[in-house]
């Protein structure tokens, strides 16, 4: 997906709850490129425009799993706290 598509899909899937600011999207994409979690390739969109397409790498998938498990730990912790309240 290219940058706009990423922002758009996050917005759609989260039903407009999560809206990614472009100001944070592109720096984040760059950081992921540096770390080798994504790789980028120039391609053509449906509307015949040049766009850069990002794809998760193997390293990226591993990192994703790490981040997701960390996120889930935090969520479980919050859920427990809220339950007891």
């Amino acid at each position, binding site marked *: 997906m*290219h*940058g*706009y598509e990423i*922002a*758009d899909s996050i917005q759609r899937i989260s039903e407009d709850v999560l809206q990614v*600011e*472009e*100001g944070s999207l*592109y*720096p984040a*994409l*760059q*950081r992921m*490129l*540096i*770390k*080798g979690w994504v790789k980028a390739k*120039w391609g053509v*969109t449906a509307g015949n*425009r*040049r*766009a*850069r397409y990002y794809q998760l790498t193997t*390293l990226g998938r591993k990192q994703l799993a790490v981040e997701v498990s960390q996120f889930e730990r935090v969520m479980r912790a919050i859920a427990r706290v809220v339950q007891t309240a």
Partner: protein
Amino acid sequence: MTFFSELGRRLLMLVRRHQFDRELEEEMRLHQELREQEHLGAGMSAEEAHYTARRHFGNATLTQERSRDMWGWSWLENAMQDVRYGLRQLRRSPGFTAVAVLTLALGIGANTAIFTLIDAVMLRSLPVANPGQLYRLGDNNNCCVMIGTQNGGSFVLYSYPLYEHLRDDTTDFSEVAAFQPFLSDLSVRRSGVASAAEPYKGEFVSGNYFTMFGVGAITGRALSSSDDKSGAPPAAVMSYHTWQTHFGGDPSVIGATFTINTVPYTVVGVTPPGFYGDTLRSDPPDFWLPLAADPDRWLFSAEPEWLYLIGRLRPGVAPERVQAQLTGELQQWLGSRPEVIPERDRGDIAKQHIHLTPAPSGVDQMQTDYAAALRLLVTIAALVLLIACANIANLLLARGAADRSASALRLALGAPRARLIRQKLTETILLAVAGGAAGLYVAYAGTRTILLLAFRGAHYIPISPKPSLPVLGFAFFLALVTGVVFGAAPAWIGSRADPADALRGAGRSTGDRTSVVQKPLIILQVAFSIVLLIGAGLVTQSLRNLEYQHFGFVTEGRLIVNIAPSLAGYTPDKLDGLYQRLEEALPRILRVLSASLSWYSPLGGNNANEGVYIHGKPPDYRWTAPSWDRVGPHYFETIGTRLLRGRAIEERDTPAAQRIAVINETFARRFFPKEDPIGQHLGMGDASHSGDYEIVGIVEDAKYQDTRGPAYATFFLPLLQTPPGEPLRGWVGAIELYVAGKPEDLEPFVRKTVAGIDPNLTILRVQSFAEQVNLNFNQDRLIARLTELFGLLALILACVGLYGVTAYAVERRTNEIGIRMALGAGRRNVLGLVLGSALTQLGLGLAIGIPAALAGGRLLAGQLYGVKSYDPMILGLAASILAGCAVLAASVPARRATKVDPMVALRQE
């Protein structure tokens, strides 16, 4: 692994920066356009859609910058940006840049020059293998021949048998070498070549000298122990410098026979370039010869102690243990040799010891001689650098204030203050680095000048003025430190511009933060300058006193020729004929008014002293032995020493005539305080000789050895009247000529005359008497010239600084001055306003500087001759010069202030 691929990606981005920027911009533009399309699709108008998308996107520039920052090269890019900007700014004000770079070049260059010398003289080791292993047997540089016990019990000079004993018995040294402490004059003539003998310098060394140093020949071979045995064919090693300069690097020199002091030597090798022997000195040895080869050397006698020793300690050996062992061996040896230590001194044997000192630089004669001078020079150079830096700081402050609105604008646009400071600091560092690079030229020129001043009269100095790697590093480091330290404050002050200043006009206020820092800097500059000026005045006056003192002889119109008959093979019986022929031929040279011969001439570096016994008086051991000289007829009139009573030495004082002596005033006062010396008798050796010479004349005191202290008690004996049994230790060493006109012009005629008498007679040196005397003041002259130069520099810098600060103040206050004049202030009031502040700074500077100069002068007092360190005339002169120049410097902008048209000033922003 991932680290390296990440690093690789980062580096790749650095290379493809522009492509990266373009791609990111394109990517973000697409994003924004798609958003716009989305809004259009949702029903907004084209304009609304565009602007909503734009707004939603946010600050595109900031996003781009943040994305780029992720890659981690922003510090480098910012630095490059700062450098480019700084260079542009500097190019826009060429006057400021030129003055700043020049000032820094002078300051950094001067310090680098001094550091070059310190590096070469004090820090460098001998260019030999593993200098850290070298140790000297002895801790001082007493010279040149001693007998029996030595000063303070510390042995530094050794007889040859003692050397052999220590060398063979101490296994902790891999080698111990012996060499003479001073260089010998050599008369050298290449066999088969028709030209006359040339004078060179040589050093007699033990066979293992080069092995001990670990130095091999670059062509041929070095001396070895087999060359140092009596009966071995004499071998010599030539120095690289001599080989190149005097023999053109001719390879046929190796293996050629040279007649050195009438003995044929074979030159067996050439030392590597850069090797100058065991002592850093001007005119290092041209030849190294084995001790055994010269028949004059006292090889077998245990009495004369005349060799220095240096040894290479084996690795892992403790010097203290070896020192104790050596001392024990020394005392044992002395105890078993009654001919060395007479009965009455045997009690002193226990006090004799050998102090083993590390000697990575060999014999540290030059270090000792010049340590004080170098320290002084370092201090002065540092002061000049500080003054230069104060000037730079002031210039930067003025510039920062002028730039204030630009800085305010930048701050208002969101630049972080730190970034602003960093940018200004970069500019300063650029200036400093440029100053440092230019300073290297100044350093090279400065070092060459210092070497020429300090070693006037030398042919070759083994110190290179070219900057070496440590020197380059020093210059760069100094430049960097200077830039940072003296740029930091102005940068910080300049960045404190209030953004609101950008919106309103500046300059209507009278207060000014910048001047708060500028004024103390000027005060300090004035203080430093007066210290240097007073110092310069003191040492210059001291030098003049030294040079123009009453020596007891006259140097004008006199020529001194140094010869060495012994080197040409003369023996005592042939000397008479030589003296006669010289005394006949020399006065016949055109323009020679009178000529004479002597063992040595005043202040030529030689001295002989010997205890005397006065007939009819008990031996007087209170005084140090008087000096004495053997002189020929017409000596005193030729060198211009007045005869006070009686007669001088004349032609009638032949070997057959009565033996006579002439004494000087100090001798007469000391030994004959109450009676008439004429007619009394004196002698040398022991009391039985006290009737040998009859005193027939008294001459005025003259300084022969020491330029500062009073003349030594001296007596003069005729050249030819040597009593039988007295060894002829000296030979004619000097010819003195009193000429009409310039003495140096006669040199070719003198050479021709001497060559006509004997072409083999080597002339060691020809120079005017004035030059010979002046060479004694090399170090004083060096310090005086340099202090004068630095003082002048400081004066110029302080005045330029004061001018700059006053001009800046006038500019800042143009408005205020306009208002005052409009309100009725006259020209005089304005002048007073501007000058008043300048004069206050000057006054405070003098108030701080003069006491500092007096305190510093106390340290200098020991070196001054004939002038007190608080000499009021010099103080007053220095202060008036500084005050005069300062007032002149400040009055230029002050007068400009009085010409301000109130209307123009009020309108000025």
